[in-house]
Protein backbone atom coordinates (compact mmCIF):
# COMPACT_ATOMS: atom_id res chain seq x y z
CA UNK A 1 0.00 0.00 0.00
CA UNK A 2 1.53 3.37 -0.91
CA UNK A 3 1.85 5.26 2.33
CA UNK A 4 2.17 8.67 0.66
CA UNK A 5 -1.58 9.02 0.13
CA UNK A 6 -2.15 8.79 3.87
CA UNK A 7 -2.50 11.81 6.11
CA UNK A 8 -0.75 11.33 9.48
CA UNK A 9 -2.15 13.52 12.25
CA UNK A 10 -0.85 13.46 15.84
CA UNK A 11 -3.95 13.62 18.06
CA UNK A 12 -2.48 13.35 21.52
CA UNK A 13 0.73 12.50 23.40
CA UNK A 14 0.08 8.82 22.76
CA UNK A 15 -1.99 8.87 19.59
CA UNK A 16 -1.45 9.20 15.85
CA UNK A 17 -4.31 9.12 13.34
CA UNK A 18 -3.86 7.68 9.83
CA UNK A 19 -6.49 9.16 7.56
CA UNK A 20 -7.25 7.65 4.15
CA UNK A 21 -10.08 10.00 3.23
CA UNK A 22 -13.14 11.75 4.59
CA UNK A 23 -16.02 9.83 3.01
CA UNK A 24 -17.89 6.64 3.78
CA UNK A 25 -16.78 4.53 0.84
CA UNK A 26 -16.08 0.79 0.65
CA UNK A 27 -12.78 1.37 -1.14
CA UNK A 28 -11.50 3.63 1.67
CA UNK A 29 -12.73 1.23 4.33
CA UNK A 30 -10.95 -1.66 2.54
CA UNK A 31 -7.72 0.29 2.95
CA UNK A 32 -8.47 0.64 6.67
CA UNK A 33 -8.76 -3.12 7.14
CA UNK A 34 -5.62 -3.75 5.04
CA UNK A 35 -3.74 -1.20 7.16
CA UNK A 36 -4.89 -2.80 10.43
CA UNK A 37 -3.68 -6.19 9.12
CA UNK A 38 -0.27 -4.67 8.30
CA UNK A 39 0.07 -2.71 11.55
CA UNK A 40 -1.36 -5.05 14.13
CA UNK A 41 1.96 -6.74 14.92
CA UNK A 42 3.86 -3.54 15.71
CA UNK A 43 4.72 -3.64 19.42
CA UNK A 44 3.11 -1.44 22.09
CA UNK A 45 0.46 -0.19 19.71
CA UNK A 46 -3.31 -0.40 19.62
CA UNK A 47 -5.16 0.02 16.29
CA UNK A 48 -8.66 1.53 16.26
CA UNK A 49 -10.25 1.29 12.81
CA UNK A 50 -13.01 3.65 11.68
CA UNK A 51 -14.67 4.29 8.29
CA UNK A 52 -11.66 5.87 6.62
CA UNK A 53 -9.04 6.15 9.35
CA UNK A 54 -7.01 4.11 11.81
CA UNK A 55 -5.99 5.46 15.19
CA UNK A 56 -2.66 4.23 16.52
CA UNK A 57 -2.49 4.53 20.27
CA UNK A 58 0.98 3.78 21.53
CA UNK A 59 2.80 3.47 24.84
CA UNK A 60 4.91 6.67 24.85
CA UNK A 61 7.57 5.07 27.05
CA UNK A 62 8.06 2.26 24.51
CA UNK A 63 8.34 4.70 21.60
CA UNK A 64 10.26 7.33 23.58
CA UNK A 65 11.54 10.11 21.38
CA UNK A 66 14.93 11.80 21.47
CA UNK A 67 16.49 14.83 19.76
CA UNK A 68 16.51 13.05 16.41
CA UNK A 69 12.86 12.07 16.37
CA UNK A 70 9.78 12.38 18.55
CA UNK A 71 7.72 9.36 19.56
CA UNK A 72 5.16 10.35 16.92
CA UNK A 73 7.82 10.46 14.22
CA UNK A 74 9.05 7.03 15.26
CA UNK A 75 5.58 5.55 15.17
CA UNK A 76 4.88 7.20 11.81
CA UNK A 77 8.10 5.83 10.34
CA UNK A 78 7.36 2.31 11.63
CA UNK A 79 3.82 2.54 10.27
CA UNK A 80 5.00 3.70 6.83
CA UNK A 81 7.47 0.84 6.63
CA UNK A 82 4.88 -1.70 7.74
CA UNK A 83 2.32 -0.42 5.24
CA UNK A 84 4.80 -0.51 2.37
CA UNK A 85 6.40 -3.85 3.14
CA UNK A 86 3.82 -6.00 4.84
CA UNK A 87 1.23 -7.05 2.38
CA UNK A 88 -0.77 -8.94 4.91
CA UNK A 89 -3.92 -9.99 3.13
CA UNK A 90 -6.72 -7.77 4.34
CA UNK A 91 -8.82 -10.90 4.08
CA UNK A 92 -12.41 -11.02 3.07
CA UNK A 93 -13.23 -11.28 6.78
CA UNK A 94 -15.37 -13.97 8.31
CA UNK A 95 -18.95 -14.21 7.08
CA UNK A 96 -21.69 -14.19 9.69
CA UNK A 97 -25.27 -15.09 8.96
CA UNK A 98 -27.51 -13.10 11.29
CA UNK A 99 -31.09 -14.35 11.67
CA UNK A 100 -33.53 -11.45 11.95
CA UNK A 101 -37.23 -11.39 12.70
CA UNK A 102 -38.44 -8.35 10.71
CA UNK A 103 -41.46 -6.21 11.56
CA UNK A 104 -44.08 -6.81 14.22
CA UNK A 105 -43.08 -6.24 17.84
CA UNK A 106 -39.41 -6.96 16.95
CA UNK A 107 -39.30 -4.28 14.25
CA UNK A 108 -41.75 -1.59 15.37
CA UNK A 109 -40.56 0.98 12.80
CA UNK A 110 -40.64 -1.25 9.69
CA UNK A 111 -44.11 -0.10 8.68
CA UNK A 112 -43.31 3.60 9.08
CA UNK A 113 -40.00 3.26 7.24
CA UNK A 114 -41.67 1.41 4.35
CA UNK A 115 -44.39 4.08 4.14
CA UNK A 116 -41.81 6.87 4.19
CA UNK A 117 -39.93 5.18 1.34
CA UNK A 118 -43.08 4.38 -0.64
CA UNK A 119 -42.29 0.67 -0.50
CA UNK A 120 -44.01 -2.35 0.96
CA UNK A 121 -42.58 -3.93 4.10
CA UNK A 122 -41.84 -7.07 2.09
CA UNK A 123 -39.73 -5.13 -0.41
CA UNK A 124 -37.79 -3.40 2.40
CA UNK A 125 -37.01 -6.78 3.97
CA UNK A 126 -36.08 -8.31 0.60
CA UNK A 127 -33.66 -5.46 -0.09
CA UNK A 128 -32.22 -5.60 3.46
CA UNK A 129 -31.47 -9.35 3.27
CA UNK A 130 -30.47 -9.18 -0.41
CA UNK A 131 -26.88 -7.97 0.05
CA UNK A 132 -23.74 -8.75 1.99
CA UNK A 133 -22.54 -6.05 4.38
CA UNK A 134 -19.07 -5.22 5.60
CA UNK A 135 -18.43 -4.32 9.22
CA UNK A 136 -16.80 -0.94 8.62
CA UNK A 137 -16.07 -0.34 12.30
CA UNK A 138 -17.35 -0.96 15.81
CA UNK A 139 -18.19 1.93 18.07
CA UNK A 140 -20.91 3.80 19.96
CA UNK A 141 -21.19 0.88 22.38
CA UNK A 142 -19.29 -2.40 22.89
CA UNK A 143 -19.87 -4.64 19.86
CA UNK A 144 -22.01 -2.14 17.89
CA UNK A 145 -21.26 -2.68 14.17
CA UNK A 146 -21.54 0.06 11.57
CA UNK A 147 -22.34 -1.86 8.39
CA UNK A 148 -21.47 -0.78 4.85
CA UNK A 149 -23.61 -1.86 1.92
CA UNK A 150 -27.14 -0.72 2.72
CA UNK A 151 -29.27 -0.42 -0.43
CA UNK A 152 -29.47 3.39 -0.86
CA UNK A 153 -33.23 3.17 -1.49
CA UNK A 154 -33.60 2.12 2.17
CA UNK A 155 -32.00 5.25 3.64
CA UNK A 156 -34.14 7.33 5.99
CA UNK A 157 -33.09 10.19 8.31
CA UNK A 158 -32.88 9.29 12.00
CA UNK A 159 -35.86 9.66 14.30
CA UNK A 160 -36.62 13.14 15.60
CA UNK A 161 -36.93 11.88 19.15
CA UNK A 162 -34.53 9.06 19.91
CA UNK A 163 -35.75 6.20 22.10
CA UNK A 164 -34.27 6.02 25.56
CA UNK A 165 -34.31 2.21 25.36
CA UNK A 166 -33.78 0.14 22.25
CA UNK A 167 -33.94 -3.62 22.95
CA UNK A 168 -30.72 -5.63 22.57
CA UNK A 169 -30.47 -7.29 19.15
CA UNK A 170 -32.50 -4.63 17.34
CA UNK A 171 -31.56 -4.26 13.67
CA UNK A 172 -31.93 -0.68 12.58
CA UNK A 173 -31.52 1.88 9.81
CA UNK A 174 -30.23 5.39 10.54
CA UNK A 175 -29.59 7.64 7.55
CA UNK A 176 -27.72 5.61 4.94
CA UNK A 177 -26.39 3.20 7.54
CA UNK A 178 -27.60 0.01 9.11
CA UNK A 179 -26.47 -1.59 12.35
CA UNK A 180 -27.38 -3.85 15.24
CA UNK A 181 -27.80 -2.76 18.88
CA UNK A 182 -25.74 -5.26 20.93
CA UNK A 183 -27.33 -4.29 24.24
CA UNK A 184 -30.27 -2.29 25.51
CA UNK A 185 -29.23 1.26 24.64
CA UNK A 186 -30.67 4.64 23.80
CA UNK A 187 -30.94 5.11 20.05
CA UNK A 188 -32.36 7.20 17.24
CA UNK A 189 -32.32 4.69 14.40
CA UNK A 190 -35.44 3.04 12.93
CA UNK A 191 -35.95 -0.46 14.28
CA UNK A 192 -36.89 -2.83 11.47
CA UNK A 193 -36.19 -6.19 13.12
CA UNK A 194 -34.39 -8.03 15.85
CA UNK A 195 -31.88 -10.87 16.05
CA UNK A 196 -31.83 -13.41 18.87
CA UNK A 197 -28.03 -13.65 18.59
CA UNK A 198 -25.92 -12.14 21.33
CA UNK A 199 -23.49 -9.67 19.78
CA UNK A 200 -21.44 -8.85 22.85
CA UNK A 201 -20.51 -10.90 25.90
CA UNK A 202 -17.74 -9.37 28.00
CA UNK A 203 -17.03 -12.72 29.69
CA UNK A 204 -16.57 -14.69 26.44
CA UNK A 205 -13.07 -15.41 25.11
CA UNK A 206 -14.06 -13.38 22.02
CA UNK A 207 -16.41 -10.79 23.49
CA UNK A 208 -17.63 -9.32 20.19
CA UNK A 209 -19.39 -11.58 17.67
CA UNK A 210 -18.28 -9.23 14.89
CA UNK A 211 -14.91 -7.66 14.12
CA UNK A 212 -14.18 -4.74 11.82
CA UNK A 213 -13.67 -6.14 8.32
CA UNK A 214 -16.06 -9.08 8.81
CA UNK A 215 -19.00 -9.63 6.48
CA UNK A 216 -22.60 -9.91 7.52
CA UNK A 217 -25.61 -11.42 5.76
CA UNK A 218 -29.11 -11.18 7.23
CA UNK A 219 -31.60 -14.04 7.03
CA UNK A 220 -35.29 -13.40 7.63
CA UNK A 221 -36.85 -15.64 10.28
CA UNK A 222 -40.36 -15.73 11.71
CA UNK A 223 -41.37 -15.02 15.29
CA UNK A 224 -41.47 -18.72 16.11
CA UNK A 225 -37.87 -19.31 15.02
CA UNK A 226 -36.85 -16.15 16.88
CA UNK A 227 -38.44 -17.56 20.05
CA UNK A 228 -36.72 -20.94 19.55
CA UNK A 229 -33.29 -19.42 18.96
CA UNK A 230 -33.75 -17.02 21.84
CA UNK A 231 -34.76 -19.85 24.18
CA UNK A 232 -31.82 -21.98 22.99
CA UNK A 233 -29.46 -19.14 23.80
CA UNK A 234 -30.76 -18.82 27.32
CA UNK A 235 -30.80 -22.55 27.99
Amino acid sequence: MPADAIQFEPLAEDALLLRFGDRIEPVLNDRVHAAVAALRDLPSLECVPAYASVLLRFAPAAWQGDEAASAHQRVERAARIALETRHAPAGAGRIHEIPVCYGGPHGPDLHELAQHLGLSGTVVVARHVGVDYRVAMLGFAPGFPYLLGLDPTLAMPRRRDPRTRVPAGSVAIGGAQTGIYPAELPGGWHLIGRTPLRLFDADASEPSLLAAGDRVRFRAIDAEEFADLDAARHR
Partner: protein
Amino acid sequence: MSVRVLKPGLLGTLQDRGRPGHAAIGVGRAGAMDLPAWRLANALVGNRGNEAALECTLLGPTLRFERATWIAITGAPIAARAGDTDLPTWTACWLPAGSVLQLGRMAAGCRSYLAVRGGFDVAAVLGSRSSDLHAGLGRALQTGDTLPVGNAASSAAPANHPHALPWRLDPRPWFDFAQTPLMLLPGSHHAQLDEVSRQALHTGTFRVASDSNRTASRLDGARLQLCAPLELISEATLPGTMQLPPSGQPIVLMAEAPVTGGYPRIGQLAAADLPRLAQRRPGDPVCFRRGTLEQAADRLRRREHALDALYRQIARRLQHDGLLLA
Protein backbone atom coordinates in the same frame (compact mmCIF):
# COMPACT_ATOMS: atom_id res chain seq x y z
CA MET B 1 -11.91 -10.07 53.97
CA SER B 2 -14.62 -7.81 52.66
CA VAL B 3 -16.05 -4.33 53.00
CA ARG B 4 -19.76 -3.73 53.40
CA VAL B 5 -21.43 -0.70 51.83
CA LEU B 6 -23.70 0.95 54.42
CA LYS B 7 -24.32 4.10 52.34
CA PRO B 8 -23.13 4.37 48.75
CA GLY B 9 -22.44 8.14 48.60
CA LEU B 10 -23.19 10.09 45.43
CA LEU B 11 -21.39 7.91 42.88
CA GLY B 12 -18.85 5.30 43.86
CA THR B 13 -17.15 3.08 41.30
CA LEU B 14 -14.20 0.73 41.50
CA GLN B 15 -11.40 1.83 39.21
CA ASP B 16 -7.95 0.65 38.26
CA ARG B 17 -5.67 1.86 35.47
CA GLY B 18 -8.35 0.98 32.91
CA ARG B 19 -9.02 -1.42 30.07
CA PRO B 20 -6.68 -0.73 27.15
CA GLY B 21 -6.65 -2.79 23.97
CA HIS B 22 -10.35 -3.21 23.23
CA ALA B 23 -11.25 0.01 21.41
CA ALA B 24 -11.51 -1.91 18.12
CA ILE B 25 -14.56 -3.77 19.48
CA GLY B 26 -16.07 -0.59 20.88
CA VAL B 27 -14.84 -0.89 24.47
CA GLY B 28 -13.08 2.18 25.86
CA ARG B 29 -10.47 2.32 28.60
CA ALA B 30 -12.36 3.81 31.53
CA GLY B 31 -10.12 3.67 34.63
CA ALA B 32 -9.57 6.25 37.35
CA MET B 33 -10.38 9.84 36.31
CA ASP B 34 -7.45 11.13 38.40
CA LEU B 35 -4.84 8.46 37.74
CA PRO B 36 -1.98 9.99 39.80
CA ALA B 37 -4.27 10.23 42.87
CA TRP B 38 -5.41 6.63 42.31
CA ARG B 39 -1.83 5.44 42.00
CA LEU B 40 -0.63 7.28 45.12
CA ALA B 41 -3.53 5.92 47.20
CA ASN B 42 -2.48 2.41 46.23
CA ALA B 43 1.18 3.18 46.90
CA LEU B 44 0.36 4.37 50.42
CA VAL B 45 -1.15 1.01 51.38
CA GLY B 46 1.69 -0.92 49.78
CA ASN B 47 -0.22 -2.06 46.69
CA ARG B 48 2.31 -2.44 43.91
CA GLY B 49 0.20 -3.34 40.90
CA ASN B 50 -3.06 -2.45 39.22
CA GLU B 51 -5.27 -2.87 42.31
CA ALA B 52 -8.76 -1.42 42.12
CA ALA B 53 -9.55 1.49 44.43
CA LEU B 54 -12.85 3.21 45.08
CA GLU B 55 -13.44 6.43 43.16
CA CYS B 56 -15.92 8.60 45.11
CA THR B 57 -17.72 11.59 43.62
CA LEU B 58 -18.49 14.78 45.66
CA LEU B 59 -20.00 12.84 48.59
CA GLY B 60 -18.30 9.71 49.87
CA PRO B 61 -19.80 6.44 51.12
CA THR B 62 -20.05 4.85 54.56
CA LEU B 63 -18.33 1.48 54.72
CA ARG B 64 -17.85 -1.21 57.35
CA PHE B 65 -14.55 -3.10 57.38
CA GLU B 66 -15.01 -6.68 58.43
CA ARG B 67 -11.35 -7.11 59.29
CA ALA B 68 -8.51 -4.85 60.31
CA THR B 69 -6.63 -3.34 57.42
CA TRP B 70 -4.73 -0.36 56.04
CA ILE B 71 -6.47 2.24 53.92
CA ALA B 72 -5.43 5.48 52.21
CA ILE B 73 -7.45 8.39 50.85
CA THR B 74 -6.17 10.78 48.16
CA GLY B 75 -7.58 13.07 45.48
CA ALA B 76 -10.10 15.75 46.37
CA PRO B 77 -9.92 16.81 50.06
CA ILE B 78 -12.65 14.92 51.90
CA ALA B 79 -13.73 14.56 55.54
CA ALA B 80 -13.03 11.02 56.80
CA ARG B 81 -13.96 9.52 60.18
CA ALA B 82 -13.69 6.08 61.69
CA GLY B 83 -15.91 5.95 64.77
CA ASP B 84 -15.07 9.22 66.52
CA THR B 85 -11.57 9.54 65.10
CA ASP B 86 -10.94 12.02 62.28
CA LEU B 87 -8.63 10.48 59.71
CA PRO B 88 -6.02 12.37 57.69
CA THR B 89 -5.78 11.96 53.91
CA TRP B 90 -2.68 11.38 51.76
CA THR B 91 -1.32 8.89 54.30
CA ALA B 92 -2.01 5.31 55.35
CA CYS B 93 -4.48 4.70 58.18
CA TRP B 94 -4.96 1.55 60.20
CA LEU B 95 -8.57 0.50 60.76
CA PRO B 96 -9.36 -2.20 63.36
CA ALA B 97 -11.85 -4.93 62.51
CA GLY B 98 -15.45 -3.70 62.51
CA SER B 99 -14.52 -0.07 61.85
CA VAL B 100 -17.15 2.06 60.16
CA LEU B 101 -15.50 4.52 57.81
CA GLN B 102 -17.57 7.60 57.00
CA LEU B 103 -16.47 9.69 54.06
CA GLY B 104 -18.23 13.03 53.88
CA ARG B 105 -18.39 15.89 51.42
CA MET B 106 -15.40 17.05 49.46
CA ALA B 107 -14.26 20.51 50.50
CA ALA B 108 -13.07 21.14 46.94
CA GLY B 109 -12.64 19.07 43.83
CA CYS B 110 -14.79 16.25 42.61
CA ARG B 111 -13.16 12.85 43.10
CA SER B 112 -11.46 11.14 46.04
CA TYR B 113 -9.82 7.72 46.01
CA LEU B 114 -10.00 5.11 48.74
CA ALA B 115 -7.42 2.36 48.44
CA VAL B 116 -7.35 -0.65 50.70
CA ARG B 117 -4.41 -2.97 51.34
CA GLY B 118 -4.74 -5.82 48.79
CA GLY B 119 -7.14 -3.87 46.55
CA PHE B 120 -10.85 -4.36 45.96
CA ASP B 121 -10.93 -7.79 44.39
CA VAL B 122 -14.03 -7.93 42.19
CA ALA B 123 -13.87 -10.08 39.06
CA ALA B 124 -11.92 -8.48 36.23
CA VAL B 125 -13.75 -7.94 32.93
CA LEU B 126 -11.54 -7.80 29.82
CA GLY B 127 -8.51 -7.56 32.06
CA SER B 128 -9.70 -4.69 34.26
CA ARG B 129 -11.74 -4.16 37.41
CA SER B 130 -12.79 -0.68 36.30
CA SER B 131 -16.49 0.04 36.07
CA ASP B 132 -17.42 1.59 32.73
CA LEU B 133 -20.93 2.91 33.20
CA HIS B 134 -21.04 4.20 29.62
CA ALA B 135 -20.21 0.75 28.23
CA GLY B 136 -22.39 -1.12 30.72
CA LEU B 137 -19.45 -2.92 32.36
CA GLY B 138 -19.58 -2.97 36.14
CA ARG B 139 -21.84 -0.60 38.06
CA ALA B 140 -21.97 2.01 40.78
CA LEU B 141 -21.81 1.11 44.46
CA GLN B 142 -25.14 0.33 46.13
CA THR B 143 -26.24 -0.01 49.74
CA GLY B 144 -25.69 -3.58 50.90
CA ASP B 145 -22.91 -4.38 48.44
CA THR B 146 -20.10 -6.52 49.79
CA LEU B 147 -16.76 -5.67 48.21
CA PRO B 148 -14.18 -8.44 48.42
CA VAL B 149 -10.64 -7.38 49.30
CA GLY B 150 -7.55 -9.14 47.99
CA ASN B 151 -5.23 -11.01 50.29
CA ALA B 152 -2.08 -9.15 51.15
CA ALA B 153 0.39 -9.65 53.96
CA SER B 154 0.12 -7.03 56.67
CA SER B 155 2.08 -6.53 59.82
CA ALA B 156 0.40 -7.36 63.10
CA ALA B 157 -2.15 -4.85 64.31
CA PRO B 158 -0.26 -1.84 65.62
CA ALA B 159 -3.25 -0.75 67.69
CA ASN B 160 -6.85 -1.58 68.35
CA HIS B 161 -8.01 1.93 67.46
CA PRO B 162 -7.93 3.84 64.16
CA HIS B 163 -4.53 5.35 63.67
CA ALA B 164 -2.53 7.08 60.91
CA LEU B 165 1.13 7.00 59.94
CA PRO B 166 3.17 9.88 61.41
CA TRP B 167 3.83 11.33 57.95
CA ARG B 168 1.70 12.30 54.97
CA LEU B 169 2.29 13.30 51.36
CA ASP B 170 2.12 16.92 50.31
CA PRO B 171 -1.02 16.93 48.15
CA ARG B 172 -0.19 20.22 46.41
CA PRO B 173 1.69 18.79 43.42
CA TRP B 174 -1.16 16.30 42.91
CA PHE B 175 -4.23 18.41 43.50
CA ASP B 176 -4.79 21.67 41.65
CA PHE B 177 -6.10 23.86 44.50
CA ALA B 178 -5.61 27.04 42.44
CA GLN B 179 -7.64 25.74 39.45
CA THR B 180 -4.99 26.90 37.01
CA PRO B 181 -5.56 27.19 33.25
CA LEU B 182 -5.41 23.88 31.37
CA MET B 183 -3.23 23.28 28.33
CA LEU B 184 -5.18 22.71 25.13
CA LEU B 185 -3.66 21.55 21.85
CA PRO B 186 -5.42 22.62 18.66
CA GLY B 187 -7.55 19.77 17.26
CA SER B 188 -8.19 18.65 13.69
CA HIS B 189 -10.92 21.26 13.12
CA HIS B 190 -9.58 24.08 15.30
CA ALA B 191 -8.77 26.16 12.22
CA GLN B 192 -12.41 26.01 11.15
CA LEU B 193 -13.62 27.84 14.29
CA ASP B 194 -14.62 31.40 13.50
CA GLU B 195 -12.38 34.20 14.79
CA VAL B 196 -14.62 35.15 17.72
CA SER B 197 -14.93 31.53 18.86
CA ARG B 198 -11.22 30.93 18.66
CA GLN B 199 -10.67 33.99 20.81
CA ALA B 200 -13.32 32.85 23.30
CA LEU B 201 -11.83 29.36 23.54
CA HIS B 202 -8.37 30.62 24.43
CA THR B 203 -9.16 33.67 26.54
CA GLY B 204 -12.64 33.06 27.96
CA THR B 205 -13.71 31.34 31.16
CA PHE B 206 -15.95 28.31 30.96
CA ARG B 207 -17.73 26.54 33.79
CA VAL B 208 -18.20 22.81 34.24
CA ALA B 209 -21.87 22.05 33.50
CA SER B 210 -24.00 20.02 35.89
CA ASP B 211 -24.58 17.18 33.39
CA SER B 212 -20.86 16.37 33.30
CA ASN B 213 -19.86 12.84 34.22
CA ARG B 214 -17.16 10.20 33.68
CA THR B 215 -17.88 10.26 29.94
CA ALA B 216 -17.52 13.99 29.34
CA SER B 217 -17.06 17.36 30.99
CA ARG B 218 -19.49 19.76 29.34
CA LEU B 219 -18.47 23.40 29.41
CA ASP B 220 -20.88 26.29 29.88
CA GLY B 221 -19.71 29.64 28.59
CA ALA B 222 -19.33 31.18 25.17
CA ARG B 223 -21.09 29.19 22.47
CA LEU B 224 -18.51 28.35 19.83
CA GLN B 225 -19.14 28.32 16.10
CA LEU B 226 -17.45 27.03 13.01
CA CYS B 227 -17.05 29.29 9.97
CA ALA B 228 -19.17 26.78 8.05
CA PRO B 229 -20.83 23.54 9.11
CA LEU B 230 -18.70 20.42 8.63
CA GLU B 231 -20.01 17.05 7.49
CA LEU B 232 -17.76 14.55 9.22
CA ILE B 233 -17.61 10.78 9.36
CA SER B 234 -16.88 8.98 12.61
CA GLU B 235 -13.26 8.69 13.66
CA ALA B 236 -11.59 7.46 16.82
CA THR B 237 -11.89 9.73 19.86
CA LEU B 238 -9.81 9.82 23.04
CA PRO B 239 -10.04 11.01 26.61
CA GLY B 240 -9.15 14.70 26.41
CA THR B 241 -10.66 15.20 22.97
CA MET B 242 -12.65 18.46 22.86
CA GLN B 243 -15.63 18.12 20.57
CA LEU B 244 -18.05 20.76 19.34
CA PRO B 245 -21.61 19.45 18.92
CA PRO B 246 -24.14 21.54 16.96
CA SER B 247 -25.30 23.24 20.20
CA GLY B 248 -21.98 25.13 20.28
CA GLN B 249 -21.27 23.93 23.85
CA PRO B 250 -17.79 22.37 23.85
CA ILE B 251 -17.39 19.02 25.58
CA VAL B 252 -14.18 17.35 26.70
CA LEU B 253 -14.28 13.56 26.64
CA MET B 254 -13.11 11.93 29.86
CA ALA B 255 -12.17 8.42 31.06
CA GLU B 256 -15.29 6.77 29.66
CA ALA B 257 -14.92 8.46 26.27
CA PRO B 258 -16.72 6.60 23.50
CA VAL B 259 -14.13 5.08 21.15
CA THR B 260 -15.47 6.85 18.05
CA GLY B 261 -17.34 10.06 17.36
CA GLY B 262 -18.36 12.31 14.51
CA TYR B 263 -18.41 15.81 16.00
CA PRO B 264 -15.77 18.37 15.01
CA ARG B 265 -12.63 17.89 17.06
CA ILE B 266 -11.55 21.38 18.06
CA GLY B 267 -8.95 20.58 20.70
CA GLN B 268 -7.08 17.98 22.72
CA LEU B 269 -6.44 18.55 26.40
CA ALA B 270 -2.85 17.89 27.47
CA ALA B 271 -2.84 14.47 29.17
CA ALA B 272 -1.14 15.92 32.27
CA ASP B 273 -4.17 18.20 32.71
CA LEU B 274 -6.83 15.48 32.41
CA PRO B 275 -6.77 14.77 36.17
CA ARG B 276 -7.11 18.51 36.80
CA LEU B 277 -10.23 18.74 34.69
CA ALA B 278 -11.50 15.55 36.35
CA GLN B 279 -11.26 17.37 39.68
CA ARG B 280 -13.34 20.39 38.57
CA ARG B 281 -16.89 20.05 39.85
CA PRO B 282 -20.02 21.53 38.27
CA GLY B 283 -19.75 25.33 38.48
CA ASP B 284 -15.94 25.38 38.74
CA PRO B 285 -14.11 27.63 36.26
CA VAL B 286 -12.08 26.25 33.37
CA CYS B 287 -9.69 28.33 31.26
CA PHE B 288 -7.48 27.08 28.48
CA ARG B 289 -4.09 28.19 27.30
CA ARG B 290 -2.70 27.07 24.01
CA GLY B 291 0.11 24.55 23.98
CA THR B 292 2.01 22.37 21.57
CA LEU B 293 2.23 18.60 21.41
CA GLU B 294 5.92 18.81 22.39
CA GLN B 295 5.10 20.85 25.50
CA ALA B 296 2.30 18.47 26.44
CA ALA B 297 4.48 15.38 25.93
CA ASP B 298 7.24 16.97 27.98
CA ARG B 299 4.89 17.81 30.84
CA LEU B 300 3.51 14.27 30.82
CA ARG B 301 7.03 12.82 30.94
CA ARG B 302 8.03 15.06 33.82
CA ARG B 303 4.87 14.21 35.74
CA GLU B 304 5.46 10.47 35.25
CA HIS B 305 9.06 10.84 36.47
CA ALA B 306 7.92 12.73 39.56
CA LEU B 307 5.22 10.14 40.20
CA ASP B 308 7.66 7.23 39.79
CA ALA B 309 10.13 8.89 42.16
CA LEU B 310 7.46 9.51 44.79
CA TYR B 311 6.18 5.97 44.37
CA ARG B 312 9.64 4.57 45.16
CA GLN B 313 10.07 6.95 48.07
CA ILE B 314 6.76 5.80 49.57
CA ALA B 315 7.74 2.14 49.20
CA ARG B 316 11.05 2.82 50.99
CA ARG B 317 9.34 4.67 53.82
CA LEU B 318 6.74 2.00 54.36
CA GLN B 319 9.47 -0.59 54.51
CA HIS B 320 11.51 1.53 56.89
CA ASP B 321 8.50 2.07 59.19
CA GLY B 322 7.98 -1.69 59.17
CA LEU B 323 4.25 -1.12 59.23
CA LEU B 324 3.49 -2.64 55.88
CA LEU B 325 5.10 -5.58 54.20
CA ALA B 326 5.49 -3.93 50.82
